[in-house]
């Protein structure tokens, strides 16, 4: 059922599928040559067959690009933006700040579920003062390729982790400070488990998927049967399927449901730039989103919780957990990680007045804390 829904929904953004399907067929040398230039996507292949149909969701990669440009236009510092082509044909949309400061360990930012590089708009300038900062759209999100992920949770996670490793190789970084928010935090931890030699410091910002689903589901107040039934009906769908179903009304849906994003970024924009960016990021073919769904069990818990695996992590990797004091994600993960790694450096930082989007809620505090952590590395 879930698969059928995913197919039905992906039909709406067929040109984008065609674009991603077309790119792996590019010859390798041509790919390398194009890697340094920002490439426009062209809808080739089967796209012509369906392109005359009116799209239910008013989106395209072009829209996303425009929305991202709007998000980033207030950034004064100069930066490189480019696609990094991975050996398996996928491309990763990458922003690099202060490339000249490469003598210090670079900071790599992994965004969360449903986000993209644009959401770090409030943080880039501060973070890149002393070192190079790279941010990229995770595979399956934002402007990166949206390939098909394996339905198996472990395999999907591995695909994400490999894409990060290949990206690192292509960009040519030896060691990195890895910062991940939400899903990015989970993947950063998974990456550090697999490639411990590459990570100098792991910063987990409001990481998703750490605790195990508690068994005492019955302990909560009893919920009426009709609400449970509703939950059961909705659970096979992708988390953001509603946004795609809403079609042309999706954008105003984002604005209605998340007016707080506008407030978070109000120092930069007083229009609906952020809502547009989030909308165009998420309304395209669900690829990373489907992978995320396959990695979860209801409601929102990880299939393979990270806390079970964290004791196997290399003892030499220092970890800092940053969380917002108001967030729904429990800050206790930090202290649990600490107790699971008794011989390693683990620090928990709570940022007051911040919710789940710590870096947008209290950008000054967040940037200062992250800079302090980075300065402690080198």
């Amino acid at each position: 059922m879930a698969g059928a829904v995913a197919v039905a929904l992906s039909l709406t953004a067929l040109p984008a599928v065609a674009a991603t399907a077309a790119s792996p067929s590019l010859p390798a040398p041509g790919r390398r040559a194009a890697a340094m230039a920002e490439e426009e996507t062209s809808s080739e292949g089967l796209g012509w067959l369906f392109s005359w149909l009116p799209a239910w969701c008013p989106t395209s990669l072009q829209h996303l690009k425009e929305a991202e440009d709007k998000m980033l236009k207030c950034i004064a510092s100069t930066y490189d933006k480019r696609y990094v082509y991975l050996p398996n044909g996928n491309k990763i949309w990458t922003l690099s700040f202060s490339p000249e400061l490469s003598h210090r360990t670079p900071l790599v930012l992994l965004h969360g579920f449903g986000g993209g590089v644009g959401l770090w708009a409030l943080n880039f300038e501060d973070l890149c003062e002393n070192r190079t900062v790279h941010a990229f759209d995770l595979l399956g999100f934002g402007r990166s390729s949206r390939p098909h992920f394996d339905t198996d949770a472990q395999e999907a996670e591995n695909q994400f982790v490999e894409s990060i490793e290949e990206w690192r190789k292509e960009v040519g970084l030896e060691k990195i400070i890895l910062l991940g928010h939400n899903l990015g935090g989970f993947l950063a931890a998974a990456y550090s488990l697999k490639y411990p030699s590459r990570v100098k410091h792991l910063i987990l910002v409001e990481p998703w998927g750490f605790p195990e689903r508690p068994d005492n589901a019955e302990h909560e107040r009893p919920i009426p049967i009709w609400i449970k039934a509703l939950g059961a009906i909705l659970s096979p769908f992708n988390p953001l399927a509603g946004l795609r179903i809403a079609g042309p009304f999706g954008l105003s849906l984002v604005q209605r449901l998340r007016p707080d994003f506008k407030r978070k970024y109000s120092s930069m924009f007083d229009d609906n730039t952020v809502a547009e960016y989030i909308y165009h990021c998420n309304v395209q073919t669900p690829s990373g989103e489907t992978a995320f769904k396959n990695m979860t069990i209801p409601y929102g818990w990880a299939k393979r919780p990270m806390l079970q695996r964290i004791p196997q992590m290399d003892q030499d990797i220092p970890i800092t957990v940053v969380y917002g004091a108001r967030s729904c994600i429990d800050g206790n993960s930090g202290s649990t990680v600490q107790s699971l790694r008794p011989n390693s450096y683990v620090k928990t930082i709570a940022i007051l007045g911040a919710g789940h989007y710590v870096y947008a809620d209290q950008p000054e505090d967040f940037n200062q804390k992250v800079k302090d952590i980075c300065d402690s590395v080198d």
Partner: protein
Amino acid sequence: MLDREGGWSVSFAGCGFLGVYHIGAATCLQERAPHVIRDARRIYGASAGALAGAVLVGGGSLAQACADVLALAKEARKRNLGPLHPSFNVIKIIRDGLMRNLPENTHQLSSGRLCISLTRVSDGKNALISNFNSKEEVVQALICSSFVPIYCGLIPPSFRGVRYVDGGISDNLPQYESKNTITVSPFAGECDICPKGNSASFHEMNVTNTSIQFSLGNLYRLTQALFPPEPKVLGEICEQGYADALKFLKENGILNDSIYIHLSFKKRNPHEAAQHIDHTKKKVLTESNGVETLKMEALSDQQKQNPWPLEKSIFESLPPRLRKALQEACKEQNGFYAQFSKLFPMRVISYLMLPYTLPVESAYSIALRLVNWFPDMPDDIRWMQEQLCQIAATVYSQAKSKLFCISRKDKYTSLRKCQTVPSTVEFHSSYCHLKMPRSSADLETWLWESSCFMQSVMKNASADVQEHSDINSYPNFPPNPDESGLEIDFDSSSESSFQTAPEY
């Protein structure tokens, strides 16, 4: 957490009947860390949050407030239609309860400290009221803040001559964005004091500043906000509030147990205060000596009185008066009639009788409301007249502008007929993307902006009269208007002239 220099505030979210959560949380703050409330710069609140804040700051009794809310919930559940039954006058019950509970000098206590969030009816903007001249003004502001339109009535109440409705419509959690605000909300979400759901979902929505996580628990809570559950469930919500506030205090290291006894001396009722000290002593005694028997005895006493299914530890720690209020409210009615009316056939009969009993009951309660309305009647009627006048004026001006438009159109079409020039309609828009000319993106924008489109057509039509020489400059007429569902409302005479114009 508590910044001494900058000061801090406490903000309570509006939440209807879930206000008992606030009462639980406020009780915890008052008993366990009274300086959090005492030294707070402001206490903000909307709707039920404002009620809790008013009781907290204005010197009312939280236990009494809890009993009032539970009584209100019982009243709402008494009839077949629940709170929608015409005889359920929620505003009157709240007003009476507040008048009883708040002391006479409550306006002095709360002026400058209590901030009540209201929504102005005239423009839908938020207003924060924080100074009061009398107890009546405090109560009236609270009534305005709690007035959910339609649910509570049709004519919005007024405060100092201005009509206001529920503060939750414009700002449900005032000062949410401030770092130094302790936010309290009964919905699981991004708040300092809120229930932590059994869901790890980070998807949430934001309703006028209140963040509500997407979870089944919250969906259930939303249904409970206006349609109260059983008193027992409300009691559990109250306990949850107490437990969450306690957790917040512990996590932030502001728990202060020594104040507990001080506070009990401050109680107004000497008899109750004595009881309170007694209880405190008893607690200290049992804990220090490790004599469990006394505690167990008390516990078993309670259990005999009324079995309490939830966490015993929290229930134990609830202040005795609040506990008593909860227990009183949860007590089943034991009378013969109460038992009798609960039987299944009786309930079926009562539902079947609804078409006959409802008109009679409605007529009675409407008569009652009319009598209560008499003092406010002239004011309200004047207000309704004003509203009607405004609506009529808007309709008139709209109609006038439409008629005016048509006359302009006639002029325009006659001109077009003799000239047969392609229309040079300039069309500024963000949705004329060359990449996707037929996307349904335009659907919504056109829905919203069609009026503005008409205006722009008209504007340009008038410009066209003067300068129809630059024909080629504006080629972007909306692509295929008929295909995308927009019907341009030209009258039939203009259609012929349209056909004479070349296609684009």
